[in-house]
Each structure stands twice: as C-alpha cells, then as structure tokens.
C-alpha cells in the first residue's frame, strides 16, 4: 500500500500527465493525418482506377497485415536508409499515420460501399457527375456510417501509441517506465495508473462518438 502512496506523489503524477499530454498530441496529429490520407486511399481503392487502385490496394494490404511494432521499426530505422531521418516524435507520427491510414482506407471503402447504390444513381440521373455524387451525396452519408468503426480505430491508435515506447518516444507508457525506473516497487502502481488513464481517454472518445452519432442528422 505504501508503494501506491509513494508512487502517486504529485511529482510522479505530474510527470505521468506530461506523458499523457504527449500521447494525446501524437494521437491527435496521427488521427488527422491518417484520416485525410486514409480517406484519399480509400476512395482510390473504391474507384477502381486502372493499376493505381491495384497498387495502392496491395500496399494497403501489406501494411494492414504487419504488426504495428514492425512498422514503427521500419519507419524509425529503415527510412534513414533512403535519406529521411525523422526525429523521434515525427517518426512516431509517421509510423502511426502509415499504419492507421491503411486501416482507415479500408473503413472508408466499406463505408462507401455501405451506402445504397441508389443514392449514386439518383445523383447521376439528376445530372451530377460521379465525383460530385461521391463528394456531395455519398461521402457525407458514408462518414456517418463509418463513425463507429473510425472511432474504434482511433481508440486503437491511442492505445497503440504505447508501442512507440520501444523507440523511446516520451509518451505516457514511457513516462511510467521512467518512474518505475527510479524504484522498481512502483511498477504495479504505474500499471494501474496507465490502465486508468488510457481508459479515461479512450472511453471519452467512444462517448464522444456516441454523442456525435446521436446528434448528427
């Protein structure tokens, strides 16, 4: 018990919160990037553009089927070999974006497919072009359908930032490690704190999604 009291000293908690803040910053940056890139890739894949879609699809498949840990390694250790040498935080954002974009692309593709094709036909028959139909009619509806899947993907993303401790990204998990590095007795209190903090962030995200779902007409 004493361990818990000592472990949760204000200094330690503040340090954890600093880590949490980095986790959130990195998550938000990666969510924004992967949402934009993933949507583009998803559309390319959905549209069946000659060769391009097939190649994009294959790359997406490769990324989707590898553990994120490996994507992190390849980004941080592999990219310098082709002349890109990102700092640790950009590297983490890049790795997460690469991985999550591939996941988002699939969500977007199936989101578009989930919209009754009648919506597209109605728009085409009404004189709109394919792209106008997609942009004005289908995508706005698809986004709403995709919301649950997108949010759980983004929840995964938040949790997945913890894997980047492996390359010493100074996020929440890493800060916990530093704290229990001072005193090995703090490890269990730290894991409890981790569980609680991640839960709060992730669960708030899913509550937000539920709220949006109800309030988006």
């Amino acid at each position: 018990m004493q361990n818990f009291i000592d472990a949760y000293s204000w200094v330690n908690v503040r340090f954890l919160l600093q880590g949490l803040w980095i986790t959130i910053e990195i998550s938000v940056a990666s969510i924004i990037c992967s949402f934009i890139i993933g949507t583009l890739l998803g559309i390319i894949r959905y549209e069946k553009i000659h060769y391009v879609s097939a190649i994009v699809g294959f790359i997406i498949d490769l990324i989707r089927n590898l553990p994120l840990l490996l994507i992190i390694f390849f980004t941080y250790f592999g990219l310098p070999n082709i002349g890109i040498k990102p700092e640790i935080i950009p590297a983490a954002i890049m790795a997460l974006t690469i991985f999550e974009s591939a996941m988002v692309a699939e969500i977007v593709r199936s989101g578009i497919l989930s919209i009754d094709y009648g919506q597209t036909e109605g728009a085409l028959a009404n004189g709109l072009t394919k792209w106008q139909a997609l942009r004005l009619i289908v995508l706005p509806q698809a986004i709403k359908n995709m919301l649950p899947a997108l949010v759980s993907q983004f929840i995964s993303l938040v949790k997945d930032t913890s894997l980047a401790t492996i390359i010493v990204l100074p996020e929440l998990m890493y800060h916990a490690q530093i704290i229990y590095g001072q005193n090995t007795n703090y490890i269990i209190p730290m894991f409890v704190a981790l569980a609680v903090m991640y839960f709060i962030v992730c669960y708030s995200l899913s509550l937000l999604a539920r709220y949006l779902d109800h309030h988006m007409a």
Partner: protein
Amino acid sequence: GCSNQSVAKRDVLSADMKSKQITWGVKSDTRLFGLENIRTGKLEGFEIDLAKAMTKEILGKDGKCVFVPVTSGTRVPLLKNGNIDAIMATMTITPDRAKQVDFTHSYFDAGQSLLVKKGSPIKNIQDLNHKGAVILGVSGSNSVKNVAKIAPKARVLQLSDYAQAMTALKSKQGQALTTDNGILYGMASENPGYEVVGGNFTKEPYGIAVNKNQQRFRNKLNWALARLEKNGTYNRLLLKWFGNVKGFNYQEMKR
C-alpha cells in the same frame, strides 16, 4: 547490408568539431547510469556526467552534448543511421558486437552477478545450471548471452526493462535475476528482501561504441577518457554515483 553511404563517409569528429556538439545515445531508464529526472526532465547518471566531461574535453568549454535516449534494442541502428555519434549506454564490449561497431577502451568495469530472494538455495550461477531453472534478464543485454554460455541448461526470460525483470522475480517467474552488478545492487537496496549472491561471474567492460571507419573519433574519445582518468574526474564521478550503493565496492573500480 543496409549501411548508409553518407553516414559511412561522413567524418564524425570533424563534423562535431565544427558544430561544437556531440550527440550521445544514452540510457534514460537505468538508475545510476542514465535516468531521466522527473522533476527537471534532465538525464542524470554516471554515464551522463562522463559524457558531459568528455565532450568538454574534446570540444572545449563551449562544447555541447545532445542526449538521445536509447534502449539496448535501438542503440545500434540509431548509431548506424547517424542519429547519434556515439553510444554510452551500459554496452558491454564483446567480439560479436565489435564486428558491427568500434569500441573505445572500457570506461567502466562491471561484472555480472545474480539477484535472488533472501534465503534462496541459489548461491551462484552453477546452482542454476539445471533443467527447470529460470533466469530473468533484460532483452538486448549481454548478460543473457553469458548465462546461455555458463548455465546452458537454464531457461532465460528476457524482459523489456529492469523494473519488469525485478517484478517478475517477485512474481516468481524466475529464481534469479541476472545483470551487471551495479544495477543489481541498486535494486537490492530498494527491495530489502533480495540480495546479490555469487560475486561476479563475468567481466562486463562497458565501452563507448562508434561507427566503423571513425578511427579518428574513437581515438579522440580514448584520449579524452584517459585524461579524465588521469586528472581525477573519473574517480570523482565514480564516488558521486556509486559511493553510497550498498554492497558495491567502488574502491576496486577506481582508476
């Protein structure tokens, strides 16, 4: 081979002299050697102080050190990719590693030992050389490799960091925890129910690693290390960091 031409060609020493800074790969989660101070956010430890002193020695008073936290798993790729100029991160000099990187002379002569629960029947490494014995270590460390040689019948579990290994020892996931003695004594002092046994069964000389083909840089590091040993700085740092570690005989390590 994924070696990078531009990194290999670059002369680290002259580049560092020009920029007036050396980028060190150091530990940030290892007590006594390199640990982030959670109040200040600064790194602290024997290796950190030594790196600072060496930097000043090489670049002069206005020389700057940049510290990049590394782990046992990331330090070599970061060096090879040129993210860091040198590794000073509890890295034992071994012939295998020497094939990939160049080492300076040793700057710390650790030895590997065992941490066990007080009252445990295990007194030395040979007590663990039987089927069913489980030894805990930290992945990427040289100590786990040594155990495989000295006690080949034991099973070794490699964990991500010392605290996890220590907790696994408390959870009886293994009978003993092995790593370098300095670290073990640190953990024993936090956990009164545990003790270091059996003395050192290997020598673990820590060296600074630099990329291949950087002889000038390596020589300069050796030169700086020797000067610090001569002018007493080295012993001062040893005292500062290891003087109070119970059971650790820092006198023996003086240079």
